[in-house]
């Protein structure tokens, strides 16, 4: 115990705290690798949070809740895909619109659900593994979404690195003109990547309203979507680094919450702003480093229109 905070518990809870960010960041990472900058992560997350909450409460099943959350995020991502890929709207502006719209709509949908408790998501029964000292509570006492998020990181890494689908996705993000000249369906691939990104952000949002908090309030995601966007940059578009980034952020969040609870002498407001400040700091360090220009997908944020 250090200053009233148990390191074991701290690590275990940072793993949980970082799940929404991991999911959203991996989803956005895939979309950005395909060359699309979707700044609407926050909007998709909060839509996922509210849709997941409603689905879980109405069905009584947290699993249905997560599916509903993913669907909610994907629907919003579909609007984004329609606007940017078909109507060729500016990606930055559309992403902002997505966030503003998502915040409003989620608050409207969630009105009747304020103050309700969702059905609980239980830890996976890993039996004797949970009894291992230190490692047990840290690694083997979590719900399935924690393990799902880790598997997602591994699967994304493997897909991008070793499969043809991953190669095509990266190619589209590097040069849509070249990909088009070789006959790849740039628009379709980008739309699929966006839908995946939306579903993952939605699931991340659902994890906040179903497990982390767990209840529904307006603005529940509190900037997690923006943090996820920052983590994609921090990660230089690589999945494992995104995991590290999410853990870093989760660690700071958990630590400051623990400090608040432990009655540290720092005012609460300064503790709660610390994750945002540290994210900015990390962004500055990463972006001032060398070799940055080459790690971002070359066509990131540019719209594609096949002319002639």
């Amino acid at each position: 115990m250090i200053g009233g905070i148990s390191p074991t518990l701290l690590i275990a809870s940072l793993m949980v705290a970082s799940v929404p960010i991991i999911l959203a960041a991996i989803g956005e990472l895939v979309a950005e690798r395909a060359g699309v900058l979707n700044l609407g992560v926050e909007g998709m997350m909060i839509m996922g949070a509210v849709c997941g909450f409603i689905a879980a409460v109405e069905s009584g099943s947290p699993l249905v809740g997560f599916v509903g959350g993913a669907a909610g995020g994907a629907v919003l991502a579909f609007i984004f895909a329609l606007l940017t890929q078909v109507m060729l709207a500016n990606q930055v502006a559309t992403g902002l619109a997505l966030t503003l719209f998502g915040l409003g709509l989620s608050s409207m949908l969630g009105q009747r659900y304020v103050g309700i408790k969702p059905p609980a998501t239980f830890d996976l029964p890993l039996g004797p593994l949970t009894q291992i000292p230190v490692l047990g509570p840290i690694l083997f006492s979590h719900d399935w979404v924690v393990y799902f998020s880790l598997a997602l990181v591994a699967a994304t890494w493997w897909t991008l690195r070793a499969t043809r689908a991953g190669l095509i996705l990266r190619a589209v993000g590097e040069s849509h003109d070249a990909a088009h000249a070789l006959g790849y369906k740039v628009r379709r691939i980008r739309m699929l990547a966006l839908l995946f990104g939306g579903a993952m952000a939605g699931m991340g949002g659902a994890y906040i309203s179903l497990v982390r908090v767990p209840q529904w309030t307006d603005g529940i995601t509190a900037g997690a979507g923006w943090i996820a966007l920052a983590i994609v940059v921090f990660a230089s578009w690589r999945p494992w680094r995104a995991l590290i980034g999410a853990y870093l952020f989760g660690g700071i969040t958990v630590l400051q919450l623990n400090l608040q609870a432990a009655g540290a002498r720092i005012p609460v407001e300064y503790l709660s702003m610390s994750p945002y400040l540290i994210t900015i700091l990390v962004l500055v360090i990463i972006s001032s480093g060398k070799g940055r220009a080459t790690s971002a997908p070359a066509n990131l944020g540019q719209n594609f229109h096949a002319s002639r």
Partner: protein
Amino acid sequence: MLRLERRPSPSRFWQAATPVLAVLLTMIAGGIMFALLGKNPVDAMRTIFWDPLFNAQFASYSRPQLLVKAAPLILIAIGLSLGFRAGIWNIGAEGQYIMGALAGAAVGLAFYPADHWYIFPLMVLAGAFGGWVWAMIPAILRSRFNTNEILVSLLLVYVAENILASMSLGLLRNPEGGGFPGSRNLSQYPSAANPELIAGTGMHWGVLAAFISVIAAYVLLQRHILGFHIKLAGQAPRAARFAGVNPGALVVLCMGISGTLAGLAGLFEVAGPAGKISIDFNVGYGFTAIIVAFLGRLNPIGIMLAGLLMALTYIGGELAQFMLGLPAAAIQAFQGMLLFFLLAVDVLTNFRIRLGARMGVAP
């Protein structure tokens, strides 16, 4: 099969027509949304867009509110539009607005209860400075370290909100307020107040500042080489460098202007309509102004009209909440929808939509 065909030059007709079309489409989609909520869509639309201005029962209250609500939106959106034109995405105006209000209010409260003519002007300067400083953080990080200004400016909103909470609970709390959060009421402290200048119009110093900013931005963009460089940097960054534009300096300039204007908007709000610093005196003008800027096509005159329209949806939304029990969030969703439709129909400005077999253009 629908097909997009690039126009040789952007269509002037559609440049003007797309915002109108977007508003109409949003009314239709919004009507459907309200119908799904179990409200009569025609009633809802009338309550939002007609009653605040022309219904004898509400107009006397609502009409002045139009200027009160439009002023901060226009002021902030004008600043944002310069950056957006240059491809500099300051989306943290909400934070700059809060910091401007805090800095301005702090100056005013420091003089309390003295009575001097120069207190309010000093507060205006402090408000502008507060917003400017908060915008300089992402600006300098961007120009010095190439840090993404979108993320930094946005994350700083959350920091500003925490500072606001800390201030209204601590430093700036009203010592005679019985321990409740929130500052002294500035609007009841004559030397620091931003009063209604002409009774019954809603006109206050912020409204005046908004009009001045519209005219200044118009002249800048139409007649001045700096405005030309701003447009150039947004449309063709490499051509801008060829024209001798220093990208870093442009970032600092555009972010500085938008931060200053957002800070001013915050100060005028806190010294006038809001009256005092409280945990939630900010109502999201900084974000709504993004919609205003786009709806106005980043054009100063357009932004003025868009600001008035958006102010109307705020007032009408409150009325609809009160009269029809429409949820407050519905208006926020409605505003977001407006931006969607605007971005969608904007395609008509640069492309023709053709029907028929596509000519060899693989999707």
